[in-house]
């Protein structure tokens, strides 16, 4: 494609592409995101493509491999326009049926439609499904019609019009004012007002400035950044261009972790395509604005998601945080003023420019505006990526969108904000998803991970899990983080293994406070949150571990014993075969017995038993 030299040429191209696509009657959109790829959506895509060409439909039907739709659990998912028919759990064998019935005749195949696990109802379109119904999908909805590897798709959908709007008509200061008015706050975890960050960076002395997109998402269970970068890389690029124009940067970096190969690939393709069209490079669209973006791959250290560590890593050094007494907007990458924002933050920028600050500010609460993508996982019926307006209560997310607990269990808590966040109990579920409210409650919105736990989770064990993760991922530079987390883990391990003493709880609390106040970087400062929040809301569980030497949820191995209820045991012998430690004995049709000396508490027998005869105390 030729280079575009003015915004008229871009508009002309858009018109041209739209005309070309008028001949297409039907579009088959198959999710090609990492989640659906894992459930072999590539095979489905190939099968549908073959089927379309054998039936001679490849000219009139467009097969679009899109980014993530959010409902990864139901993958591979497929949407067929017109009619917006939503199919889930599609297999390559269904391709013939889909093409010959739905694509050609418009008939709906009921077998492939989504069945709601709560009510048992069958839904035909995405919009009707309860999982999608309560969401406000501003960013994620764009994923479903765009092929991330095609800049044409993005342009047809109105892409890069926010860029042309600011290049030809909005002064940088006014862009910043608009972002400030919108109330957009950093989506990566800190929740720092984006407008203020940009303003400080613009005002910082120096000609050479940088913008960075932080796609080094490392929270266990969170993958919203991957999904946005993978599914709509041009949206992120456009946001970065607007930001760069506003603060006066000429160079940008996307720091994406190497564990996200698809995100790396798609963002690289996007940058190349944008360069080819002259949307990146010198004098973009004939204006005075020159800007280029490089993709940098991260090695996967959790700490490199911290802004200063990321910049050090980008400079080619060991990724360790620096003291932040001078902010990165003044002393950042290569000691130059640098604006670093999260993927989701950048992705929000183009729509704020296009629709205005008041549109964005109309969503959300007093302190937190717009929408937030949450990664909903854990012991609930529907898991996946959820985008809701800020201020939506947690209960709506967990019960309406998530569909409530599985296996008829009771939901006990939700862990928000990843390893740096905290656990909130059921009676706090009316709290809204809001930066300030959740921090006050001892948790945080963070990057937006949301892990739902039911009564089968031990909160002490949860705290231990996160501490183990953080101990592993701490860079080790400063004493409180390196030694403090290690000591907290030592104490918690003592508690879960029955060696705990009551005074250790106070020590744990004091140590957690010390670490959170004195650690060098944000990782260390928030590392004690899982401990502090579980201590605050689930202190009784800690006390049960210490006083009664019991784990109420039956998780901590040192404090539980497996036994077989002789009344329920039928002597079928399945558990005997399952037990790898030969700890179960018993005659045929006789109640079996577990030898507690040999039992390693792996739980295989319990999952094998059809009569629920194996109990834990």
């Amino acid at each position: 494609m030729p280079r575009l030299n003015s915004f008229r040429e871009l508009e002309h191209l858009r018109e041209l592409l739209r005309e070309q696509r008028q001949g297409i009657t039907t579009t088959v959109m198959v999710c090609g995101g990492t989640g659906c790829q894992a459930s072999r959506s590539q095979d489905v895509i190939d099968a549908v493509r073959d089927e379309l060409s054998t039936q001679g439909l490849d000219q009139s039907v467009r097969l679009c491999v899109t980014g993530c739709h959010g409902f990864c659990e139901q993958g591979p998912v497929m949407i067929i326009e017109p009619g917006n028919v939503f199919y889930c759990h599609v297999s390559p064998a269904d391709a013939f049926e889909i093409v010959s019935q739905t694509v050609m005749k418009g008939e709906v195949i009921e077998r492939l439609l989504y069945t709601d696990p709560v009510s048992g109802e069958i839904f035909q379109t995405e919009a009707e499904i309860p999982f999608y119904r309560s969401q406000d999908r501003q960013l994620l909805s764009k994923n479903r019609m765009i092929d991330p590897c095609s800049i044409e798709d993005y342009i047809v959908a109105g892409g890069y019009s926010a860029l042309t709007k600011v290049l030809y008509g909005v002064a940088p200061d006014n862009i910043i004012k608009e972002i400030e008015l919108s109330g957009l706050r950093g989506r990566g975890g800190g929740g720092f007002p984006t407008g203020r960050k940009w303003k400080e960076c613009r005002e910082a002395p120096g000609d050479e400035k940088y913008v960075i997109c932080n796609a080094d998402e490392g929270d266990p269970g969170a993958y919203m950044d991957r999904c946005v970068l993978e599914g709509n890389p041009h949206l992120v690029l456009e946001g970065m261009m607007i930001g760069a124009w506003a603060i006066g940067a000429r160079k940008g970096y996307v720091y994406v972790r190497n564990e996200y190969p698809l995100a790396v690939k798609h963002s690289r393709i996007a940058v190349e395509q944008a360069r080819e069209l002259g949307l990146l490079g010198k004098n973009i669209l004939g204006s005075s604005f020159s800007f280029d973006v490089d993709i940098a791959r991260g090695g996967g250290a959790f700490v490199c998601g911290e802004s200063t560590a990321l910049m050090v890593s980008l400079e080619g050094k060991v990724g360790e945080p620096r003291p932040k007494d001078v902010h990165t907007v003044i002393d950042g990458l290569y000691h130059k003023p640098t604006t670093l924002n999260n993927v989701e933050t950048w992705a929000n920028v183009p729509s704020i420019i296009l629709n205005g600050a008041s549109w964005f500010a109309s969503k959300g609460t007093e302190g937190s505006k717009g929408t937030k993508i949450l990664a909903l996982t854990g012991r609930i019926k529907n898991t996946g990526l959820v985008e809701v307006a800020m201020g939506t209560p947690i209960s709506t997310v967990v019960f309406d969108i998530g569909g409530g607990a599985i296996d008829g269990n009771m939901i006990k808590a939700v862990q928000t904000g990843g390893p740096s966040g905290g656990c909130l109990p059921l009676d706090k579920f009316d709290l809204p998803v809001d930066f300030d409210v959740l921090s006050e409650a001892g948790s945080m919105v963070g990057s937006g991970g949301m892990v739902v736990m039911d009564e089968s989770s031990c909160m002490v064990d949860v705290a231990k899990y996160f501490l183990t993760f953080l101990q592993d991922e701490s860079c080790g530079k400063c004493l409180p983080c390196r030694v403090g987390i290690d000591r907290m883990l030592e104490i918690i391990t003592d508690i879960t293994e029955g060696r705990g003493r009551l005074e250790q709880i106070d020590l744990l609390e004091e140590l957690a406070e010390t670490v959170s106040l004195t650690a060098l970087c944000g990782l260390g400062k928030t590392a004690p949150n899982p401990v502090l929040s579980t201590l605050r809301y689930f202190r009784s569980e800690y006390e049960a571990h210490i006083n009664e030497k019991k784990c109420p949820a039956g998780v901590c191995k040192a404090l539980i014993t497996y036994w077989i209820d002789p009344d329920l045991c039928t002597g079928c012998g399945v558990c005997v075969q399952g037990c790898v430690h030969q700890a179960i004995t018993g005659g045929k049709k006789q109640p079996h017995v577990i030898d507690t000396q040999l039992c390693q508490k792996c739980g295989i027998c319990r999952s094998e038993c059809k009569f629920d005869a194996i109990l834990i105390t």
Partner: protein
Amino acid sequence: MLQHVNVNIDGANIRAVRGTSVLDAAIEYGICIPHLCHVPYLPDIGACRLCIVEHVVNGRSNVTTSCTLNVEEGMVILTNTDKIRQLRRNLAELLVAQAPNSRAIQDIALRCGVKEVRYPFRNEDCVLCGRCVRVCTEVWRARAIGFVGRGKERHVDYPFGIRPEFCKQCGNCVQVCPMTIPPCDGPMKPGEEYLCGKCESQLMLADETPDHCVWCKLGEGFTCGRYVQ
């Protein structure tokens, strides 16, 4: 021409040279802020966190390390509040539990008011203050040693564990190392570590004159910035 700024540290108005750290300005003036990883002629990394102070901005106080905080006009710093003393004591307790077998660390713990240690002792040989790495990198530009590993695995080592040719064995790394100072002979024998409290007289001194540098013997032990200069 040296430019000066006025800083308020613990209520004292101090004229400090622009570009120096709060820690250096305080020590220069005789205000004692305990520290370990700071060495006057080396760049600071803020690893030990012992030199934390409260930096009051618009009525809100931030806890930050004074070695990495540069002086600015009109700055208000509190080095010796109850909060800071408690945090510092907790940090020193972590430190001494990690490596009780050095006089420097024992003295720091004493100076910060640690009277009992609530964690099991570990006899580490290194507290990762990074003095050796920085002296090798910044002063001698040799880069013969560096940090290896992450988190619990972090340690100081030669590249790939082999002494490179460009290590001239100058011994500067050993000189600045706080772990080379033999422990006080009373307590802290391997296997029976405890703080004996025999240095009570010095502890009293540290308790009574907590914010003024009195050129205490403790400072000599933990190679306080004042003694190094």
